[in-house]
């Protein structure tokens, strides 16, 4: 059982390169995480198919696929990874859909406040990593229980 959590993996998706650069610059300064940036939703999905992420932050309006559709796909691929919508397009309908269907961790509007973004991402990462640790521990508990049963059976057999 490791005592420290792994380096956070952060996925950022926005069709504006500019926004990605800004968020990446800030997060590089303030977090220890690896930051993966994508301007195309399809590329982000390909990344998520093979690489575990702790948090996925997506813009809403993007060509090809909107942020809610992307986050729904991210949820299917990695349900435990937290999902954040960062949007300049404040529309109640899309917000409701994002919260209900993509199981959103947080809905954040542009312009974002860096300090608030950091708080949200740290909370999201902590949640994902605790969830993953819990899954590992439950699996270990299952294994241990199986082993116990095995010992018990052998003990019973030995006495019979």
């Amino acid at each position, binding site marked *: 059982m490791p005592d420290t959590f792994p380096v956070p993996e952060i996925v950022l998706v926005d069709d504006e390169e*500019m926004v990605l*650069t800004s968020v990446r610059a*800030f997060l590089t300064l303030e977090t220890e995480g690896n930051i993966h940036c994508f301007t195309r939703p399809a590329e982000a999905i390909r990344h998520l198919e093979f690489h575990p992420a702790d948090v996925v932050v997506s813009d809403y309006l993007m060509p090809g696929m909107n942020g809610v559709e992307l986050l729904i796909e991210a949820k299917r691929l990695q349900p435990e990874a937290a999902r954040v919508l960062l949007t*300049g397009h404040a529309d109640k*309908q899309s917000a409701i859909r994002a919260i209900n269907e993509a199981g959103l961790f947080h809905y954040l509007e542009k*312009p974002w406040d860096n300090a608030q973004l950091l708080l949200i991402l740290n909370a999201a990462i902590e949640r994902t990593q605790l969830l993953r640790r819990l899954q590992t521990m439950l699996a270990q508990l299952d294994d241990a229980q199986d082993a116990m049963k095995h010992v018990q059976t052998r003990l019973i057999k030995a006495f019979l």
Partner: protein
Amino acid sequence: MENGSRNPATPGALHRQRDPAAEGEDTAALALVGHLAGGILHEISSPAASLSSNIDTRQRLIEALGATLALEGKPNPKALQALEVLRSLQEVDRLACDRITALLGAWKSTARVAEDPLGPVEIEGVLADAVRLVNAEYRRRIQIELHTAPAVPVWGAAAPLGRAFLNLLVNAAQAIEGEGRIVVEIEDCGPMIEVRITDTGSGMTAAVQQQIFSRGFTTKPVGTGTGLGLLLTRQIIEDQHRGTIRFKSSPGQGTTFFVSLPAARKPHEEP
């Protein structure tokens, strides 16, 4: 009283009834401008958000640099000087960006076309946004005072209310020639919340007063007025919000508009 006539040679251009074809053209032009404005708003939002974030990140870097320099026994004076210049530029950038962001926010909340259901709306915020937008155009010659006491929310939809007040404020500003003042007040009148917008403009003659809510009526120069603003404002206030809009005006003394909107009071707050 000439009723603010700027061009006495062509009195026909004032107080005119617009012909329906021109009105249709204006409406189409307005729709196009509105559509473009929506696109521009979205296009400016992202770069503005980026700038705002970068200014914050740069501030953190400047502070870190300052702390590192302070650790050195004899910091390089050129480096200290550069840091000072960076700090002052940073301050200006922060102010500039905050101004852009506030204006975009006001524009966004006022221009929303999505049909939101009616609900409690903080009227002070709506008025502050409308004042912000009008200030962008008129603050050099017109001083707008917004007197807000902590008011009970009204029952309504923020975006159309914002447009209604924006209309009244723009009218007030346009009624003022040269320098002047607009005062916006909110009063809690029990079941209704009253907003009063008073200008020090030219006021209206009795003849104008009778027609201001008529479709196509305008006193503004050709190309400025559509003759629809007050009509739409009344529709928003009276039809959509079950409120009332009244005014008091005398030529040469200015105009006050009184807008009453239903208060969104919780049962236990009933006065």
